[in-house]
């Protein structure tokens, strides 16, 4: 975008962008530095020896995986039907789902609180998985439907003429073509589920089911507000998603960019 003809202009631009990213690095440096203060790696040993840590990880992983599966299945089925099948009053149903896009999750708190209590779902993974999926589906259906509109109807008709039913056409022809958008769905849902704080805060009160986003608060109580150990816990919980991002960098960026670009 910016044209740099001369050598000095090139250097100025390089220096400028370096200075601009430093503030983004600063909090991460403070976090790592703080986690090594005092007894150094001993902070990590203290944090890693707590039995809660693997438990919280497992809970977050289970919730994320279940949410991703649920969102993926519902989105693919619904987007296919909205794009390629006949439904009377299709747009009414579609707008019903779309209107939920704007909904802040805090609105769900009270009704879901009393409902999960009545159904005995309070303190179970489902009390977090189901609302997470419900809040994610409107956006993923919107993305996937416009992606599937780009798949020619002729492909599915040809499969039908060859004797395949709708389910087979969906499974063998449509699904393999939707891999790019599937990656976007998985990444978006993963970030949303793994990082969610409010739903676990309200619906998961027992340490058996709590997630890693509640871990720093939990450790503030456990370690008597020992900041070095709290920061070590923060680093340990941040690492998996940072590593996942570094490994799948392109996928993450494409997944998020899918929201605004066709």
């Amino acid at each position, binding site marked *: *975008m*910016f*044209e*740099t003809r001369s050598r000095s202009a*090139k250097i100025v*631009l*390089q220096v400028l*962008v*370096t200075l*601009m*990213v430093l503030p983004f690095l*600063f*909090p991460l440096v*403070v976090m790592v530095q703080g986690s090594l203060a005092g007894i150094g790696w001993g902070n990590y040993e203290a944090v890693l020896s707590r039995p809660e840590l693997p438990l919280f990880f497992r809970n977050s992983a289970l919730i994320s995986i279940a949410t991703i599966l649920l969102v993926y*299945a*519902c989105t693919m089925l*619904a987007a296919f039907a909205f794009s390629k*099948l*006949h439904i009377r009053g*299709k747009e009414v*149903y579609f*707008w*019903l789902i779309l209107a939920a*896009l*704007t*909904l*802040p999750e805090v*609105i769900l*708190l*009270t*009704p879901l609180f*009393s*409902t999960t209590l009545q159904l005995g779902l309070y303190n179970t993974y489902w009390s977090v998985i189901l609302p997470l999926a*419900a809040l994610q*589906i409107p956006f993923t259906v919107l993305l996937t439907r416009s992606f599937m509109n780009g798949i020619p109807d002729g492909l599915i008709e040809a499969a039908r003429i060859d004797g395949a039913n709708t389910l087979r056409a969906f499974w063998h022809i449509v699904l393999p073509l939707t891999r790019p958008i599937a990656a976007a769905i998985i990444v978006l849902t993963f970030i949303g589920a*793994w*990082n*969610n*704080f409010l739903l676990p805060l*309200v619906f998961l009160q027992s340490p058996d089911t709590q997630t*890693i986003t*509640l871990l*720093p*608060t939990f450790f503030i109580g456990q370690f008597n507000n020992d*900041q070095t150990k*709290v*920061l070590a816990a*923060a680093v340990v*919980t941040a690492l998996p*998603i*940072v590593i*996942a991002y*570094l490994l799948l*960098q392109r996928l*993450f*960026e494409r997944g998020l960019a899918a*929201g*605004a*670009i*066709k």
Partner: protein
Amino acid sequence: MEDNVVMNAPTLPSKRREVEAGSRSESTSKRRRLMPSGYLWILPAMVLCVGIIYYSVGYTGYISTLEWDGSSPVQRSVGADNYAQLFRDPIFWQAIRNTAVFFVITFAVQTALGILFAAILHSNVRLKVVYKVIIFVPVVLAPSIMAPSFRQIFGANGQLNQVLEAVGLDFLAHPWLADSATALPTLMLITVWHWTGLTFILYFAAMGQVEPEVLEAARIDGAGNLRTLWSIVLPSVRGTTIAILMLSIIGALKTFDIPYLITLGGPNYSTEFLGTYIYRQSIPLANVGYGAALSIILLVLALAFAITVNVRSQRKES
């Protein structure tokens, strides 16, 4: 070019297909048999969405007419009293003001930074991937994970004050989060840190679609770098800007994690948002009816803004 998926109005492809199908009588009977199955396909998504979201909204609407603590069997119907109380509640108006200021500033700063980073990283600089990773990493880190570090950085003995003292600006040193004048700006700074990576990635992808010939032509006509950015690049990424505007409005209205974890809405309600106030009323204070009335107002605001942005952006396009 329609590059804005988020705001796309639904089209009616089904009509067209019916006509096509009519011309091929052989496949028509088969199609007829398959037609009802469309309902079954959308059923899971509808059950989840409508079942949870619309049920909750309806339930919240009902609760908003009650005086109730959320668990006791005693519920007293108070009609619209909760809403009347809300308009007289100074903390409600404070939360609205905070949300408005928060939205305007974070949106402006994030958009400017996102465009600038995207333009620079589309230029001839080295180590692009490193810069991209540094800007983007905050997006994947949950606010709850970063909150302890931020409380420390902006504390009275925190790193920010140490840096200020080191460069001779001691008079600026300050307990940033404990002073009601600086708490909200500090939270805005943290929010910008968290979400600039997202606006950057969206603009970066959108700018990749700007045709090099157009830029070249502008250069030949003598336009400088900033002029090209303003007159050529910005108009062609308009769809992205509208998508980000929408995300920012909803994001500001939803704001919960960062103020709850870092300042708990204080000091003196200076960082209270609708999200944190609804939580405070509904859970710790157990004024469930009042919290529900606040929730309904929040929902109305979110829908009203979403529709306004949508309608205005479409009118401008045509």
